């Protein structure tokens, strides 16, 4: 092949390579979320009650223990699973039992869920049970929220601040 033609072919090859790199480095755009929708993100980490109520040891029982292990209360490590419920416009959007973490089931339960919803006004109710009770919920928060398109609406849970936080 003639030298000039060879260089021309090389130029074409480089140009094609640059075209591929330059294009796919940014294009085509990826639609991660429908631009008309908003996102409700529910995320929290919370430890439920112990599975059984703690029991106060008797003096006889304490005497049987080595002096450095004489804790007055006997508590099982396991915690209850949390029951979480999220209601959107009167319909249950999400309901789940969140098991405690840890090999012994003594850690916090965590939730991280995302719900794309149409933008606009919605009535949200969040409920959570973290006790040994069998019916009902220990926490409930309701609000009418107006979500704009692409809004990231966060539902957090912090018992020290009163329960659910709509952010």
């Amino acid at each position, binding site marked *: 092949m003639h030298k000039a033609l060879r260089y021309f072919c090389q130029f074409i090859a480089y140009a094609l390579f640059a075209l591929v*790199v330059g294009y796919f480095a940014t294009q085509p755009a990826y639609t*991660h979320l429908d631009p008309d929708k908003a996102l409700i993100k529910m995320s929290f980490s919370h430890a439920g009650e112990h599975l059984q109520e703690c029991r106060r040891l008797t003096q006889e029982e304490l005497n049987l223990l080595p002096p450095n292990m004489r804790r007055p209360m006997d508590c099982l490590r396991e915690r209850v699973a949390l029951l979480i419920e999220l209601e959107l416009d009167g319909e249950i959007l999400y309901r789940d039992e969140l098991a405690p973490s840890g090999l012994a089931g003594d850690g916090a339960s*965590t939730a*991280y869920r995302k719900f794309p919803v149409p933008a606009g006004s919605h009535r949200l109710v969040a409920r959570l049970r973290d006790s040994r009770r069998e019916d009902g919920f220990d926490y409930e928060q309701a609000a009418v929220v107006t979500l704009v398109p692409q809004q990231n609406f966060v539902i957090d849970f912090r018992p020290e601040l009163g329960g659910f936080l709509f952010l």
Partner: protein
Amino acid sequence: MQVSSIRSVAKAAFEGADNVFNRAFTPEWNPLFHLGTLGWYFYWIVIVSGIYLYIFFDTGIHQAYESLEYITNVQWYAGGVMRSLHRYASDALIIVMMLHLLREFVTDRYRGARWFTWFTGVPLLWLVFACGISGYWMVWDVLAQYIAIASTEWLDSLGIFGQSIARNFLNNDTLSGRFFTLMVFIHIAVPLFMLLVMWIHIQRQRNAKVNPPVGLAIGTLGMLLVLSLARPALSQAPANLDIVPAVIDFDWFYLLAYPLLDKVSGQTMWMIAGGGTLLLLVLPWLPRLKRRATARVDLGNCNGCGRCVDDCPFSAVSLQPRTDAVAFSHEAIVIDNLCTGCGICVGACPTATPFRRSSELVPGIDLPDLGIKELRENTLSVTADLSGNARVLVYGCGHGAGLDQLLGPDVAVIKLPCIAMLPPSFIDFVISRGHVDGVFLTGCTDGDCHYRLGIKWTSQRLAGERDPYLRKRVPRERIAASWAGITGNKRLQQDLRAFQDRLGTLPPFKRPPHRSADARAGEAAEHHA
């Protein structure tokens, strides 16, 4: 369709592309033969440009974005170009890395003694992606926001972290600037670790190249510079965790798998990624390569000259102190699990000469399943019945075009594991003894020897640039080579026909005068002195 059929099609496709690029770039500059070295080259461009960017980069939630805006817009002539080079070289690295992996797979250069190079290359995939993803993270624009959330959600799905990492990106209030410090650390530490793995990756390759040819390097850098100026790498809108990025300009080289995270669970994604990685790791044993018999050293004929050590492409031959009473300092030793049985060491051995008469033809190093003695016998046997005035003996390797198609009344064929197994003295032998009128060499595509260095060593031996040399007395017009590869059947036939036509026009070959025993003894004494 079976894997082998797919591989054959892919191999033919690669070879077709090789031939096109060979014409445009020449075999020396063919980028498809330098995918590995181009990977190294892009790595260094990324490192150098990254060091420059790091000087001006500021960690912090707002500072990261602002400092990059300064680099890109105010300092566009230097920092902007460096940023674009950084991005585009990273993208190009992905392309050449994937092509490199695919090429080694379809050409079956990952099994047997080559398992180590393949195996150590697999972790590099993860490291390259970790570098790229952490880099995008540091820009802290909407793409970085998407990557940060998607990546941490994916990590959280492992279930091994006490606290959810993704919770750091819940909204603007939960974000901490310390995360950027961690990202900078990762973005520096991972490439450094990657360099170590890259170094390990080439440890079993003798004469391993880490730099592409100068011409290719200049062309590639020029291409990246033009691309950087024509389409500078830019940030997207600054990240805002209160807003969900809906439509994002995507780098598909690094983020190709990310959309899958929106479709399947994190655990499923880990199973796909982990399973894919595991499959790649065990691929060299699926199935295990039926290995050729490895080379054997005959100590009685080995003087420890080290030519086989220099020529072995896989560092499978080394020298050790002499274990017998002979007065040489070293002897060659073959490391079986590194030996591919290509026979290149045999072609390098000065004792592998068919002219030897005084003793049985046993070279210092030889292949058990195709010894030099057998090669000499085959050579004499296949050339015995040739007729015509353009009798040709074709020495070809088993990784090139079909050799049987060349057979004819004036053409004989001998197949070798690699063309560099042929000691140059065999060419001298068959021509000077008048067994044939010419010798024709063929094998893999030019520049892409299956055993890495076979064509290169053969060409250098014939050109008198590498020991053992082809003697000057051998008429070069009676030797031809055609590196046609597996798809070059037609070209091979044409080249052979042209060679025979040329041979037919040459005057009859005069055998070199037979040297007397006295002359030979004199030469030997002179050589010894």
